[in-house]
Structures are given as structure tokens and as C-alpha cells.
């Protein structure tokens, strides 16, 4: 059973698949030696190509229903692609809620569901064609991610901000109880960090030495009402997380090579008694020039002309859904 059904993607890019030794190193979890893993690592260029397609998916999805959140989704696309196509040790074709022996990902800022849905579909969790149902009646691709409709890849609902870190910490502790050495990843918006529950969770993680978690904050400097600095300044984010007992890394989130380096580095810091936080600098709306660096496109869909303009800036690498 392949951990990641991406051979066809590699083929698309005409690159020879390479075996990722690092993936094997995490497979010493007894119960899982059974499904030994052929993990296909992709080159940075391949990943960037996938990211182009994901960005096309995002703008097409929100345009089709005239609702949804393109800004944050576009900014976090490189992170999602790196995570799902390179970093995660996961099983897209045999989704199991408990995820024993798999790395887990939790999206706390649930409004950027478009990027997650696209990456989940493109990495094999469900048919790419289902992206066309986003936010439509009876869809499994609800406006905000949910387990309620049984969409593979989702392990908890989000949308109400500030809750995902706590959930991920529980999942990480369950892994420890189960003797599962996998890693739990989370993503948060920078505005989301204003929620008090985040700081409750931060304190909890350090106290319980939860060192199998790698959290990332999408530091795009924007939230709905404007720049974070003006709405509710986060001050010195590194100092805050360090004071709360986390190991803090920084990473440029819109440069695929940097993202890969940053996530790989963070991985090397797990198991050292401290939770890990990556402050990821991104540009909201990245990849579509008129959406970049402004909160205007936080939760607004492009009209037909804007869609055409956006698609003109993004190469179709894997075929539109």
C-alpha cells in the first residue's frame, strides 16, 4: 500500500521518483510495519507546479459559488503542497479517523478550506471532480471543514477560530499513549492567535512537553478588518511563543524551497521535550497579483473577469477539475 499515490504526478513532471529514506525512519511503529511505505519524494519544481494547479482550483472553487476565502488559501498554498506531497507520512487512499501510524494535520483557521480541499483531492483523498461541489447544498466540502459529512482527510470541524491547537494537542498525546512516533501538524491564522484558547493550549503543550507537534502560524499580517498591526497588534510573536515555552522557527512561506527546508528543520527538532512553532511569513492572495497583500480578498470571490485575469497568471499543470 503506497503512503502517497503520487507516482502519476511525478510522471507528469517527467522526473524519476526517489525513495525518501526519511519516511522509512519513522516507520518503526510496530503496528504499521505491515503497510511498509513506498514514499515518493518530489522535486521543488514539481511541488511548485502542483501549487500552481492548487491556486487555480482555489480561485475556481470560490468563483463558482461566489463565496469562500481565497486570500488566506492562496497565501498558504505552498505550505499545504509541501506538507501533503512531501512532508506528511500519510495514507490518502485508506482514510482512518484515528490515523494510527500516520502524521496528522489539523487546520485551525478553517476558513481557508479551499486550499485544503484542493490538496486533499489532488493527493488522493477524494475525487478531484468533487471540488466542483464546494459550498453547494448537500456537499461534503462544506464552507468550513467538517467530519459531519464524512469527507476523508478531515478529523475535526473548524471554522470557529482558536480551537484547533487544543484538538491537535490531544491527538498528539493520544499518539504518545499509543506509542506512535508520528507527528501532528497544525496551521493557524495570525489573527486567530488573538483568541485566548490558543494561549491556554500553548501553556498546556509546554507543560506537558508535547514535542510531537509542529504548529505553523500564517503570518500574512492581515485579518478581516485590516492589517493585524492595526486591528490588534500581535507585538513580538517570537517572544510570545518563546515565553510560552515553545521552540520557535521562522520560514518564508511563499518560497517552496524555503518551506521544505523549514518543515524539514522543524521535524528535526521534534522529540526534544518542547512543542515547535513555525512563524511562516506569507503574502495573502499570493499568486494572483490583484489579490496580493490586502485583506480585501480574505473572504470575497472573484467575478468572471477577475477569475479570467487570475487564471491567466496561473499555469494549469495537472488539469483543472
Amino acid at each position, binding site marked *: 500500500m503506497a503512503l502517497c499515490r503520487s507516482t502519476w504526478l511525478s510522471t507528469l513532471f517527467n522526473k524519476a521518483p526517489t525513495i525518501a529514506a526519511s519516511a522509512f525512519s519513522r516507520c518503526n511503529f510496530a503496528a504499521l510495519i505491515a503497510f511498509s511505505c513506498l514514499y515518493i519524494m518530489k522535486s521543488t519544481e514539481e511541488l511548485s507546479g502542483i501549487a500552481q494547479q492548487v491556486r487555480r482550483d482555489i480561485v475556481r472553487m470560490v468563483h463558482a459559488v461566489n463565496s469562500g476565502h481565497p486570500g488566506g488559501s492562496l497565501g498558504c498554498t505552498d505550505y499545504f503542497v509541501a506538507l501533503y506531497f512531501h512532508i506528511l507520512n500519510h495514507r490518502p487512499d485508506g482514510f482512518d479517523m484515528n490515523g494510527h501510524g500516520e502524521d496528522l494535520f489539523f487546520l485551525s483557521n478553517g476558513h481557508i478550506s479551499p486550499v485544503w480541499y484542493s490538496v486533499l483531492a489532488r493527493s488522493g483523498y477524494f475525487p478531484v471532480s468533487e471540488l466542483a461541489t464546494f*459550498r453547494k*447544498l448537500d456537499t461534503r466540502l462544506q*464552507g468550513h471543514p*467538517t467530519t459531519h459529512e464524512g469527507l476523508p482527510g478531515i478529523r475535526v470541524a473548524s471554522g470557529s477560530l*482558536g480551537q484547533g491547537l487544543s484538538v491537535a494537542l490531544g491527538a498528539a498525546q493520544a499518539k504518545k499513549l499509543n506509542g506512535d512516533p508520528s507527528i501532528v501538524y497544525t496551521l493557524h491564522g495570525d489573527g486567530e492567535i488573538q483568541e485566548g484558547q490558543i494561549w491556554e493550549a500553548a501553556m498546556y503543550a509546554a507543560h506537558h512537553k508535547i514535542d510531537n507537534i509542529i504548529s505553523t502560524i500564517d503570518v500574512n499580517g492581515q485579518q478581516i478588518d485590516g492589517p493585524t498591526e492595526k486591528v490588534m497588534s500581535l507585538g513580538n510573536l517570537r517572544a510570545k511563543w518563546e515565553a510560552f515555552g515553545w521552540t520557535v522557527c521562522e520560514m518564508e512561506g511563499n518560497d517552496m524551497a524555503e518551506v521544505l527546508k523549514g518543515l524539514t528543520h522543524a521535524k528535526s527538532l521534534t522529540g526534544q521535550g518542547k512543542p515547535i512553532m513555525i512563524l511562516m511569513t506569507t503574502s495573502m492572495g499570493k499568486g494572483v497579483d490583484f489579490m496580493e497583500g490586502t485583506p480585501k480578498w480574505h473572504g470575497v470571490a472573484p467575478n468572471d473577469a477577475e477569475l479570467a485575469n487570475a487564471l491567466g497568471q496561473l499555469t494549469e499543470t495537472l488539469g483543472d477539475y
Partner: protein
Amino acid sequence: MLNFEITGSNDTRSGFGAGLLEAGKRNPNVVALCADLIGSLKMDAFLKEFPERFFQVGIAEANMMGVAAGLTIGGKIPFTGTFANFSTGRVYDQIRQSIAYSGKNVKICASHAGLTLGEDGATHQILEDVGMMSMLPGMTVINPCDYNQTKAATLAIADFEGPVYLRFGRPKVPIFVPADEPFVIGKAWHMHHGKDVTIIATGHLVWKAVEAAQQLEAEGISVDLINIHTIKPLDVDAIVKSAAQTGAVVTAEEHQLIGGLGSMVAQALAVHQPTPLQMVGVNDSFGESGTPEQLMKKYGLESQDVYAAAKRVIAMKK
């Protein structure tokens, strides 16, 4: 006559925004707070006019409720603004202790209530807020039905001393309440007198109830139509009197049946005037993504559903 002229269409939250601006002009003690949703709450005009009386709290609703309580201590009249779920469930204990039990003059103003916010889906579609706020001793709970009534309600609560929960919605809906219709907190608006069945509706369901009543009257069924804009304190008198006359009651609301207006009417009837009742509302289910119209249909909140409930309850009469 059940002849309500539709004078336009607008969202109730815009009625709130207009009322807030006007309240701010009338009383310099009116201040406003928002948790990163200025545009959604239509608070822009107030912010522009009174920047120094506006407090941005970011995405920190619990803190917003506390800060609002504190502002009253300096004689201010704070209006908080965020979505209805983050105005209630996210901050219930804060409202309970720092506002309701402390008797603070805070106006909790909540937009995007119910299914009709549409595509965002269940995490945002609170259907329990009226129930939560109504259980709080000392809380006044208001759910107006159109732009004009929401604006009037906003002005009325600014003048009222005590904690208030004001609930409104996202989509544009018909405007049919006369702009000069007085808004009296706690007093039901008896929209039409009839003798065969009582229909009690609140919020977006009032217009659906009007449509249902028109259909019923066209069939010769006489409808007593009551608009309950104030769910707490409930105008029990109006309800019980009407039930005594018609012997059959329907309630209609964009809320869970458990804990909503229907449950409060059921209690009032059972104690004072046991009467057959049929309730229109969401039946113990979360919402989901879809257009407001699709959702109202799927979850049984259309005028057709009110009509059908009326027929059912009339059949229950002995």
C-alpha cells in the same frame, strides 16, 4: 387585512447599522465594540462618525464582553458586534457573570444568526442563541423581522436600561414593517386578528408567516397573527389570550425547536391554557452550506411549512 406592503428589501443587519449610527448621534454615551467583523456587522458608519467611541477588540470575543461590561462602569452604553454564535456560545459564561448577573447595560448585537447566513455552514449557523440568552435571568432577548423593525429595535434598546441580546441576520429580506411602527420592548405586535388559528412568529419567519396566513385566509381560515419581536420577556398575555380564542397555535422561528420560542410558548400554554401546538423550526439538527433559500427549504422553514403546520394544528382541535 394581512395587507402588508413590501416597501423594499434589505438585510436586518443594515437596520442595526443604521440604528446604531442614529443612537450614537442621539446619545454621546453610546459606544461600540467589534471583534474583527466591522463590515459584516455594518458598523462602518458608526466607526466613521465616532472613531473615538469605537473599540476594535480583534478576534477575542470573551475579552470583548468583559470590556463592554467595564465600559458601563464609566456610564457608557456599549454595543458589541460579532456573529451570533460568537456573541453567545463562545462567551456565555462571560455574559452570564460580567453582564447579566452584574446587571450591566450592555447591548449584545449579533449578526448572521440562523441558517440564512448560507454558505459558511454549520459552525457559523447558530440555532441555539435565543435559547441560551433566554435562560439568563435579567436578559432581554429581541429578534426583529425586517430592516425597519431592526432599526427601531436598535434605537429602543439604546434607551432601555439593562442587558439586551439583539439578534439579526445576513441576507436581504422583504421590508414590510412601517417605518413609523412603534417598537415597544416586551409587547407583541398583533399583526392581524383572526379566530381559527394563532400563528406566532419571530425574525425572518414573520414574513413567511404572513405569506402562510395570506394563503390560509384565501382558503377561508381566519388567522390570528402575532409578531413576537421580544422573546424575553415574552408577552404571555397576548399569546394565552389568542390561544384561548383560536384553540390552535403555530410557532415559527429560525432556531432549534428545543429551547426556542416554540418551547417558551409551549410552556406558557401548558401552564395557562393547554392548547394544541405545532412548531416550525429546526428539528435537532446542525445546518450546512447552501444558499439561504435552499436551506430554508431543506430545513422546513418556508411559508409552506408554516401553512402546513397550521393545517395540522387545526386538525388537532377537538
